[in-house]
């Protein structure tokens, strides 16, 4: 049976992240359709690092690093040693429903991280639009020119954050709630605030495995169709998926064997994270933010395999 190629006339923008200008995007075909086009940069795999001791994190993740995670700097070093190509700092401390810290501790920590690591630094707020606007805009101004990746930036807070991010050369994660039309709209609004498209990553919002992953998948698919087949410039941007936090907050990933023997081994969350990650990569994700370092290794192997056609032919198709 012959397959009809999926004709594409569009191409996603190549964006350069961090101070070392790490490229993402530039695809002119659907994900891994190497027989139809090119995907010049491999997907980037990032690991979470929290700014506070990860008390809410499951033990299976904490133990994976084999060390105490009370120092974000040590944690970041361990994440890099585990193969992370970017660090995704989670500003848990600023959550108004938690410690409600001001911007100062985050300012200090981001500065130290920037000095210590040479991979892109994603700085993720607490999903409270107002608080994130305050803290992320302070960071944007303080670290002018240091090429942070700031998120989540939503319609609700983009007017406060976007002009500063644009002025100081940072990249924005444009977050919308699993909706193609709203994703396009937010990118237009960001452009209106002076953000160049090549400084925007699309965050379609990730549903966890069993918690709406399929909605995210189909929205991502439609975003790629718009970019590649309808040549929609506003959407021809790399996609970032914040997968780790969705996987590791689910009961199915956290339950221990002794509480729920029918669920199998305690590390099943890793397999959930890998299988969900594979789905998102197939849907076109350019950046995955993961929790467990073992998931990162599994997904790295998968990506390496698909990026080396000869090997893939041997291992997958024979």
């Amino acid at each position, binding site marked *: 049976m012959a397959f009809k190629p999926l004709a594409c006339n569009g191409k996603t923008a190549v964006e350069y992240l961090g101070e070392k200008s790490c490229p993402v995007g530039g695809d002119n075909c659907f994900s891994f359709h190497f027989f139809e086009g090119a995907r010049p940069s491999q997907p980037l795999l990032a690991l979470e690092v929290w700014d506070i001791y990860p008390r809410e994190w499951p033990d299976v993740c904490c133990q994976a690093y084999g060390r105490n995670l009370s120092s974000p700097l040590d944690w970041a070093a361990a994440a890099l040693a585990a193969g992370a190509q970017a660090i995704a700092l989670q500003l848990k401390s600023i959550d108004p429903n938690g410690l409600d810290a001001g911007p100062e501790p985050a300012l200090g920590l981001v500065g130290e991280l920037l000095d210590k690591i040479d991979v892109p630094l994603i700085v993720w707020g607490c999903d409270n639009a107002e608080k994130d606007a305050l803290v992320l805009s302070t960071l944007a101004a303080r670290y002018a020119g240091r090429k942070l990746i700031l998120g989540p930036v939503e319609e609700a807070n983009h007017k406060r954050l976007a002009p500063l991010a644009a002025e100081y050369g940072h990249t924005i994660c444009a977050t919308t709630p699993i909706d193609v039309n709203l994703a396009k*709209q937010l990118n237009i609004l960001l452009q209106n605030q002076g953000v160049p498209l090549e400084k925007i990553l699309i965050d379609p919002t990730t549903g966890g495995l069993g918690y709406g992953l399929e909605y995210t998948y189909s929205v991502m698919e439609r975003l790629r169709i*718009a970019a590649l087949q309808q040549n929609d410039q506003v959407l021809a941007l790399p996609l970032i998926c914040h997968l780790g936090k969705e996987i590791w907050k689910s009961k199915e990933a956290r339950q221990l064997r002794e509480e729920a023997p029918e669920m199998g081994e305690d590390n099943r969350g890793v397999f959930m994270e890998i299988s969900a990650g594979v789905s998102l990569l197939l849907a076109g994700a350019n950046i995955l933010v993961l929790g467990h370092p073992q998931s990162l290794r599994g997904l790295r192997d998968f990506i390496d395999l698909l990026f080396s056609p000869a090997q893939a032919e041997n291992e997958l198709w024979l």
Partner: protein
Amino acid sequence: MKCIGENLNVMQKSLNQAFQERNPGPVQEMARQQQRAGMAWIDVNLGPARKNGPELMDWLVRTIQEAVDLPLSLDTSNIEAMEAGLAAHKGRALINSIMARPERYNAMLPLVTRYDADMIALLWGPEGLPRDENERAAWAVELIYAANEMGIDNQRIYVDPIITPLNIQQDQLPAVLRFMAMLPEIAPGTRSVGGLSNLSNGTPWREPLNQTYLAMLKRAGMYSAILDYKDRLLIDIAAGKRPDIEQVVVAVEDGSLTSPQEVEENLRVFARAARVILGHSLYSDSWMKLE
């Protein structure tokens, strides 16, 4: 294309008050305006009408038909209220609507014959909204067959393929057009109708979207539409008085017009709307400004 005025609606605050107070003035005034604007039916929309539904519908039908000599489209999901309206109605009423769900059509089809009414066959199936033109076709066949079995002729049936909001279900709008092309073969002699305004619900571009899609539906052979009688341009398009707009829409549909810039400035809005309705461009609230 025939027009059914949508505005006599329980959702309209001022009218709702008149409904509750049984005050004929505002109701009759709007009915006369709709007649002057050229509506062929007036839709009387009570929604679920849980409280005093039958008595309210009876009063509304009598009150409106005292003022205007037009048939009414009776729009309520309350079957008792529907029956009360049919009993009070002079001439042939239009039942809006009967869904393609057995428990609904088994209860409602007898009203069509008992009161010698016409009916809207709403292609809302057992699982809700149809997902493409084929599901629409399957449900149309089921519902029309059941109606025919009851002795209802095809010409009394107005098939409503369900127009969904552009900002939620963009791909359903071309699906409705494809279904319209199938309908004459599936059910020869049936008429068709669509609730147009739903298309633009929640968007800041209501009028141009409604106007453009109406031109497409007209071309696709839709017999009538439920619409906003206050939109003069829309009524003119339905009446075939704006061939210039229809030409632009046809050109986009046929692929001979790909850039809105190729037409005069006052017509560009229709080219843009046509592109987004047909899915050539992904909808966003700001898309009008982009192309």
